[in-house]
């Protein structure tokens, strides 16, 4: 049955295509089978990439500027008195059912309300529900003490939805651009339960539909004829293979089997940069992620702030980037990366600790360990991975050489590692963070607030908490910027809670016939791409 519809659509495409030209297929590789294509459940980048192509949300981000643009919602306004954001929706968006009939059911505000409430439902057990706790009644509902009716999301009519928050959050439209606020197809979910995301059941409303999904092997996205902006979608089909090995993926790209390689192995970077063809296909774009080495200030000798300063000052970030990472990343002395509202340029402003071996040695001496004598062994733990291992060996070696101390590098497998960091974090541990939405609240508050579960350093500063709490409710952008700047200075410079290492970049290889955009927040917008004749 399913195969027939794929065939039918392919024939239709072919017919349409014969009229207009060649069928445009983008050959992409996702590195694993998406664990879940359910917007309420998906947590990883692979799933998000596919979801972005299949579902639309209230708003969307401009790939280049991170500005919030309309998507399902055409406009929105905020009412300070009721602390409510009201979104006005388009009326020409349709659900595309599994047999791709264009006149599917319309996407309504009721679907938005359903989507958000389902995300918050305790039975769904969504891992991202906490992000929406700023909605009135959300936390209570999600933890099982409140009811769905008390959640501050109401469909005022078919095309207007009102979302009431606990406090005015200027950044809320950014959150409305996340998959979290996407409308969901109630009929399909209630009919098929957990299996509603399989290719034969799924109902979507985005630029692409799920044509075929062979688990662990490949996945095909086909252009949706009923997408509201279908005329501007140029690529007809996206064929996703699922090869995990980065080196194999590179071989596939070089053989022309893949059109884009979004994770070229860093071992090949030298060769790519010196290759006449590949060097022209390589592009780098900023990515909203930061890599840090967390410090457990409860464990001696790191309880001495001078020791932390010494460690922070002896990380040669530039050499790390030039020789180990090779991806033109940016050294980080502060936490939020460029592109996030609240970013401060720590390097040029002198916030944080640049590489300064002399100063580092001085800090250590002042701490009572001149030349590293008497300094106990420090454990640096990472999760099992080649890439993290290289970075750890480089930085660990740097510490040993500069400070004369002993570093013990151990690794643990991911699940165990997270557990260890949460319960009894080692002295130094590696963590990263990628933006859920491009605002400092997601970086400062969601991560380092003393009550946050993501605060593996167990950083507890009432001053910091006050700053970020105030910034969360503040409406004036200038005031917010200043608050975040103070927070950065406090956590990176004054308290040295962790050592920021670098801001990620996207290094991607793209065939010259692909006309594309780059998304800093992750998840490419294939609907805006094009493939030239080749």
């Amino acid at each position, binding site marked *: 049955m399913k195969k027939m519809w794929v065939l039918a659509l392919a024939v239709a495409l072919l017919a349409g295509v014969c009229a207009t030209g060649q069928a445009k297929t983008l050959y992409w590789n996702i590195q694993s089978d998406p664990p879940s294509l359910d917007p309420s459940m998906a947590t990883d980048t692979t799933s998000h990439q596919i979801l972005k192509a299949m579902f639309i949300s209230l708003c969307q981000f401009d790939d280049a500027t991170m500005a919030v643009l309309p998507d399902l919602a055409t406009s929105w306004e905020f009412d300070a008195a009721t602390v409510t954001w009201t979104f006005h929706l388009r009326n020409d968006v349709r659900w595309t059912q599994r047999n791709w009939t264009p006149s599917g059911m319309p996407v309504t505000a009721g679907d938005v309300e359903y989507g958000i409430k389902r995300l918050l439902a305790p039975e769904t057990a969504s891992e991202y529900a906490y992000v929406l706790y700023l909605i009135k009644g959300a936390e209570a509902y999600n933890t099982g003490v409140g009811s769905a009716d008390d959640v501050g999301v109401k469909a005022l009519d078919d095309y207007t939805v009102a979302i009431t928050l606990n406090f005015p959050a200027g950044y809320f439209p950014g959150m409305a651009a996340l998959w979290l606020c996407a409308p969901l197809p109630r009929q399909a979910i209630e009919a098929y339960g957990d299996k509603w995301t399989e290719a034969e059941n799924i109902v979507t409303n985005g630029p692409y539909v799920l044509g075929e999904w062979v688990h662990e092997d490949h996945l095909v996205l086909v252009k949706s004829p009923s997408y509201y902006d279908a005329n501007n979608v140029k690529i007809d089909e996206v064929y996703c293979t699922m090869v995990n090995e*980065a*080196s194999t993926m*590179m*071989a596939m790209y070089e053989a022309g089997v893949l059109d884009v390689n979004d994770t070229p*192995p860093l*071992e*090949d970077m*030298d*060769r790519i940069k010196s290759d006449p063809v590949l060097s022209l296909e390589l592009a780098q774009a900023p990515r909203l992620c930061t890599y840090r080495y967390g410090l457990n200030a409860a*464990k001696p000798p790191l309880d001495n702030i001078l020791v932390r300063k010494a460690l922070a000052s002896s990380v040669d970030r530039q*050499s790390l980037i030039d*020789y*180990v990472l090779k991806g033109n990343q940016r050294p980080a002395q502060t936490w939020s990366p460029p592109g996030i509202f609240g970013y401060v340029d720590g390097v040029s402003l002198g916030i944080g600790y640049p590489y300064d071996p002399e100063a580092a040695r001085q800090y250590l001496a002042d701490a009572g360990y001149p030349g590293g004598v008497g300094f106990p*062994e420090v*454990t640096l*733990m990472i999760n*099992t*991975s*080649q890439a993290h*291992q*290289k970075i*750890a*060996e*480089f930085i660990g*070696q740097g510490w*040993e050489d500069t400070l004369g101390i002993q570093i*013990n*590098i*151990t*690794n*643990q*497998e991911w699940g*165990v590692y997270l557990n*260890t960091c949460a319960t*009894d974090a*080692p*002295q130094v541990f590696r963590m990263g963070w990628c933006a859920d939405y491009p605002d400092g609240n997601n970086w400062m508050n969601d991560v380092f607030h003393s009550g946050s579960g993501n605060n593996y350093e167990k950083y507890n500063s009432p001053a910091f908490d006050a700053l970020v709490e105030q910034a969360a409710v503040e409406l004036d952008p200038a005031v917010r910027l200043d608050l975040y700047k103070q927070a950065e200075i406090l956590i990176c410079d004054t308290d040295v809670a962790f050592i920021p290492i670098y801001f990620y970049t996207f290094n991607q290889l793209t065939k010259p016939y692909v006309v594309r955009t780059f998304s800093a927040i992750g998840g490419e917008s294939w609907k805006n791409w094009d493939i030239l004749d080749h």
Partner: protein
Amino acid sequence: MVRRKVQSGEQTSDKPRSLGRDAMHRLLKNRAAVAGGAILLVIFLAAVFADFVAPYSITEGDIRNNYAGPSAAHPFGCDFMGRDMLSRLIYGARISLAAGLIGALTAFTIGVTFGLVAGFFGGKTDNVMMRFVDIMYSFPTLLLIILLMVFFKSSFSVSGVAGGGFRGALSDIDRAMGGMFFIFLGIGLTSWLGMARLVRGMVLSVRGKDYVEAARAVGTPRSQILLRHVLPNVLGPAIVAQALQIPGFILYEAFLSFIGLGVNPPTPSWGMMLSQGYIAMRSHFHLVLWPALAISITLFAFNFLGDGVRDAFDPRQTRR
């Protein structure tokens, strides 16, 4: 014993040749085995005297040299951290040989003890113990060792383990050995079954021998029979059999390090070097080539030597 008349000029030896001597003699005539032994000896010596033989230490490296190809200063090139490949290979020999030898020792100890007890006490004990062995035989070894390694690494590898004691002590030992301790344990715990069966079989056959009967009749205590009659006859073939398994252990360690369940960095295991090199294979083949050659040559030599030893000890061997 009748003595032949000695002709002039003929060499004879008066000493009767024991099985060991005989085997040694046959072994030395096997050129392939000797070659294998020689190569192994070189590797062994290099591993033991690594500090003197290797031009650099395993951590010494200039990051600016990373991925460098072969040169005068670094005949085998450099790895991703600019460390000398040759030196890391030499130190890596320690890891592989240690995994092979100590893993074998662990499996040997467990297996021999088990087999001795089962074979010697016989009856119900033997039945139960051997049933256990039969059951464990069905557990796919690689899967078991993966499970064990995940278990070990997660429970024991954290330094400063809260509440020290046993766990802390084991963690410290493991760290001191660069992550090898649990590999030995893992290999040993999963590979003793064959040895147990073999030893038990041998014990059973020795038990039936006349001299054992005689010893019992005379009233020799069991422990004495075990130590003086059973054990010496069993040890020889057991050691040979165990030695033949060493290449397999070296392979296990390489596999485990390849998938990340092996040693901790910067300890240079050949398997880990292979996994690091595999990713860079297309751009820097030498990172794969040397560890691959190292493992292959070592196993090659071991297999030739092992074959030779097995043939030498096989009394039924006839070769034209």
